[in-house]
C-alpha cells in the first residue's frame, strides 16, 4: 500500500471503521497520521448486546466508549465525534455538512480520504456521509484534492461500479481487525456475522478489504 502522511476517515457510525480496520491499521503501521470523523453515536442501533445490557437511553454513551476503545485497538490517533443524530444525517442541511468537511480537509490536507460510495452505502446515513464528502472534495481546487477510497456494500456494486480498484491484502491484520470489532461489545455479534457474509475468509489466513476510487473527472 502507498504511504500517506495524513489520512482522513469520515463515516457515520461507531463500528463502520472496524469493518475496514485491516486497511486502517496497515496505514497506521506505515506511519500515517489518521483523523477519524464519526458523525453519529449510532444511538438508534437495534443491537443492545445479547443479552441486552444497553437501552435506548444508555446506548449512545456505551457506543461512544466502544468507539474510543476500537480506535485505540486500531491505532487511530485523532478521533472526532461530530454529534449528529443516527439515521438523521440525510435530513441535516447537506451544504452545511459538506462545508464543515471541506474546512477539515483544507485544514488537515490529507492525501487520502475514506468514506462510503454515495448510492452504494445501503444505510441512508452511509449515502449521505459519502455524498457530503464527495461534495466537499469537488469544491476543492483539483491540485489540492485528496484521493477518495469508497466503501460500497450494495449487492449490485460490481455491476454498476466495476471491479474495485483497490483490494488490500489485510491477512496480517485479521486478528487486530476482529479485536477492534469486538470492542463494539453491544454490536459485535451482528458485525461478525456481516463480516463473515462479506468476506468468508475473514477468519482465515487470507483476507482482503476492497475500495472503489471516486472518479472526479
Amino acid at each position, binding site marked *: 500500500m502507498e504511504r500517506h502522511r495524513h489520512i482522513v476517515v469520515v463515516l457515520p457510525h461507531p463500528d463502520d471503521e472496524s469493518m475496514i480496520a485491516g486497511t486502517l491499521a496497515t496505514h497506521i503501521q506505515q506511519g500515517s497520521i489518521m483523523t477519524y470523523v464519526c458523525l453519529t453515536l449510532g444511538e438508534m442501533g437495534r443491537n443492545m448486546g445479547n443479552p441486552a445490557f444497553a437501552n*435506548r*437511553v444508555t446506548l449512545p454513551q456505551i457506543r461512544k466508549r466502544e468507539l474510543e476503545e476500537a480506535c485505540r485497538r486500531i491505532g487511530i490517533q485523532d478521533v472526532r465525534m461530530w454529534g449528529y443524530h443516527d439515521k438523521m444525517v440525510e435530513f441535516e442541511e447537506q451544504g452545511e455538512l459538506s462545508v464543515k468537511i471541506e474546512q477539515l480537509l483544507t485544514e488537515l490536507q490529507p492525501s487520502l480520504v475514506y468514506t462510503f460510495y454515495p448510492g452504494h452505502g445501503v444505510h441512508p446515513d452511509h449515502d449521505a456521509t459519502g455524498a457530503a464528502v464527495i461534495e466537499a472534495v469537488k469544491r476543492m481546487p483539483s491540485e489540492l484534492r485528496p484521493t477518495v477510497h469508497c466503501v460500497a456494500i450494495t449487492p449490485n456494486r460490481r455491476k454498476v461500479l466495476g471491479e474495485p480498484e483497490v483490494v488490500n491484502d489485510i491477512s496480517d491484520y485479521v486478528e487486530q481487525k476482529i479485536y477492534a470489532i469486538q470492542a463494539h461489545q453491544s454490536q459485535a455479534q451482528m458485525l461478525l456475522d456481516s463480516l463473515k457474509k462479506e468476506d468468508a475468509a475473514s477468519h482465515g489466513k487470507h483476507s482482503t478489504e476492497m475500495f472503489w476510487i471516486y472518479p472526479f473527472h
Partner: protein
Amino acid sequence: MQPIQQEQVQQLLQSFQNKRVYLHLEMTTGAYASHRDKSKLTASVFTKNTVIQYSHGTIAGNGPYRIGLKTEDGWVYAEGLTHWDEQEVNQLIIAGHDQQGKLMVCLMLSESPF
C-alpha cells in the same frame, strides 16, 4: 433490561398521568432488513421528545405486552413489548426485543427530554 413486570410498569404509567411528559416512540425492522432479505421491507418510524399529556395509561396482555395512552385528542399505542429497565424511577424505558435480542419497538416516557 429485564423482562417486563406488569404491575410495576402500570404504577409508573400512573405516576405520569396528567403531566406533560416527553415521549420517545419507535418501531423498526432494522436499516438492513431488505439488504439481508429481499422479501423484507426496510421500514421504521420514530418520534423523539414529543410532548404529550395523557389521562389514562395502561399496560395490557400476558407478555409480550401492549401499552395504550389516552391523550386529550387521541392515542399513543405500542405492541410487542418484552423488556423494561427497572432501575429507572423517573423514566419509563420499555422495549420489545426479538429472539436475537434486537430492538424492534420502543416506548419511553420522561419528565425531562431524552
